[in-house]
């Protein structure tokens, strides 16, 4: 497979200096990874391994201590690139705006005419199953619905690269599977490259074309697994025997690392 490279991480590393002491924490890397245009890439790893940092590096929210991040051939280097949408783990709805205004927030700044904006927002509302809630406020919605608002807000901008940081972390299992189906549908419709961070191995195994497995901190890529799923797929592939094999292989790679990070957490507390 020789698809176009969409995002490239070359020798990317990140260190933090702690505010209260002078020691430097090596959080991530070095990481080398290329995301192909239009693929669905998932990252799994033990907690605290720097998964979210990796996402923030690609989003331009933080800059790398070493190495470089490129999006569509241009270096990011702490600049926030256009065409990238991010869905965060926490609820990022603006509580003072209606659902419609929340979804419209980014569009309002992009110089689009009112008809086009309204049309995009209406379609996103319908697609995310939020019809009838357009004029409600986030506080009146459940956690799952609020997360769908955030996904809709990202989608209306038509990003070419969508970064998702454990977007379903706060949801129950059934809702997560259904949201996974929705995500696959959106991915196929939009043609965007998707980079998903998750701690749920089954979620990664079901959704992604390729899965990166990360080590305990400092996070490095231990393994990249090709799932080989067809583009047309949904949550029913959990019945496929290969689904079990992939999940098992992920756990084999991760078990030792997770124990390491638990041990580190135990020692430091």
């Amino acid at each position, binding site marked *: 497979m020789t698809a176009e490279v969409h995002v490239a991480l070359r020798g990317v590393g990140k260190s933090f200096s702690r505010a209260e002491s002078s020691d430097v924490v090596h959080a991530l890397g070095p990481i080398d990874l290329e995301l192909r245009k239009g693929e669905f890439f998932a990252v799994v790893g033990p907690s605290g391994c720097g998964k979210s940092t990796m996402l923030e590096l690609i*989003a331009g*929210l933080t800059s790398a201590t070493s190495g470089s991040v490129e999006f569509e051939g241009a270096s990011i280097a702490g600049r*926030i690139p*256009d065409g*990238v*949408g*991010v869905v*965060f*783990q*926490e*609820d*990022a709805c*603006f*509580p*003072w705006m209606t659902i419609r205004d929340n979804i419209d*927030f*980014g569009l309002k*700044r992009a110089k689009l005419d009112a008809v086009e904006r309204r049309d995009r927002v209406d379609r996103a509302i319908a697609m995310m199953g939020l019809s009838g809630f357009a004029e409600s*406020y986030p*506080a009146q919605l459940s956690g799952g619905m609020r997360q769908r608002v955030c996904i809709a807000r990202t989608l209306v*901008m038509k990003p070419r690269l969508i970064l998702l940081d454990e977007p379903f972390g706060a949801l129950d299992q059934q809702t997560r599977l259904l949201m996974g189906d929705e995500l696959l549908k959106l991915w196929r419709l939009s043609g965007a490259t998707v980079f998903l961070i998750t701690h749920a191995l089954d979620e990664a195994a079901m959704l992604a074309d390729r899965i990166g497995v990360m080590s305990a901190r400092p996070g490095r890529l231990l393994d990249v697994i090709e799932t080989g799923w067809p583009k047309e797929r949904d949550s029913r592939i959990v019945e496929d025997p290969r689904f079990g094999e992939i999940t098992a292989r992920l756990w084999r790679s991760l078990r030792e690392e997770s124990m390491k990070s638990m041990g580190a957490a135990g020692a430091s507390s």
Partner: protein
Amino acid sequence: MKAQTRNAAINTVLLLVLVTAAWQLLYWSFGDAALRSPAQTLAYTVKLFSGEMIWPHLRETMAAFAVALLLAAVIGLSIGFTLGYNRFAADVFEPMLVALYSIPKITLYPILLLMFGLGMPAKVAFGAIHGIIPIALFTMNAVRNVRVVLIKTGLVLNLGRGEMVRSILFPAALPEIFTGLRVGFSLTLIGTLLGEMFASQRGLGYLLMNAIGLHNIDLLMALTTILIVFAATASIVLLHYDRKIHARL
């Protein structure tokens, strides 16, 4: 919702009746040397407003209070936003603000009088320093407590600093800022009146001190009632909006 409004109205009426009854009881037990009855006070207040004497003083106090409140809000919000945005500055200045907040401001009044002279500027300055610090502290905490993910959302959309303040930081912090403004309102009013009570030739505070000196209990009671009604009404209105803003969170 309607039942709630009706309940609130009933409660307000009940409170007014209770306060008036307690006042009447106090009047009966302390007598004419110290107090006037609610009916007498009401009659005198009406007379006061139909006369000429009160108006210049009322205008003076309202003008001083309005300017002091405006200054307190502008300066308090500026300090609050600056410190809220800048962690280091906040770490340096917050303890100073808290210390300033805890000293009785009246101790600063002699210095203010020497700086501004007798009259309007000193009153305004004294009123404003009462309001600035609570508004600044509330605003600073409000801005600091804005959830990081909301700011990141703005960053991903490439919002500039001005836009970030206007369309994310300010609305996100507004409920707490409003609480600060509400507290600042009451304290600025206290400060302005205190300023008028000492070293002033005009204003309701001055009239009040004058009434004490002349043992004019009618005037004393009428002025106190006017001030209480004004402060209470304003507080209730502000509290109503405060709750309304917080209800959306």
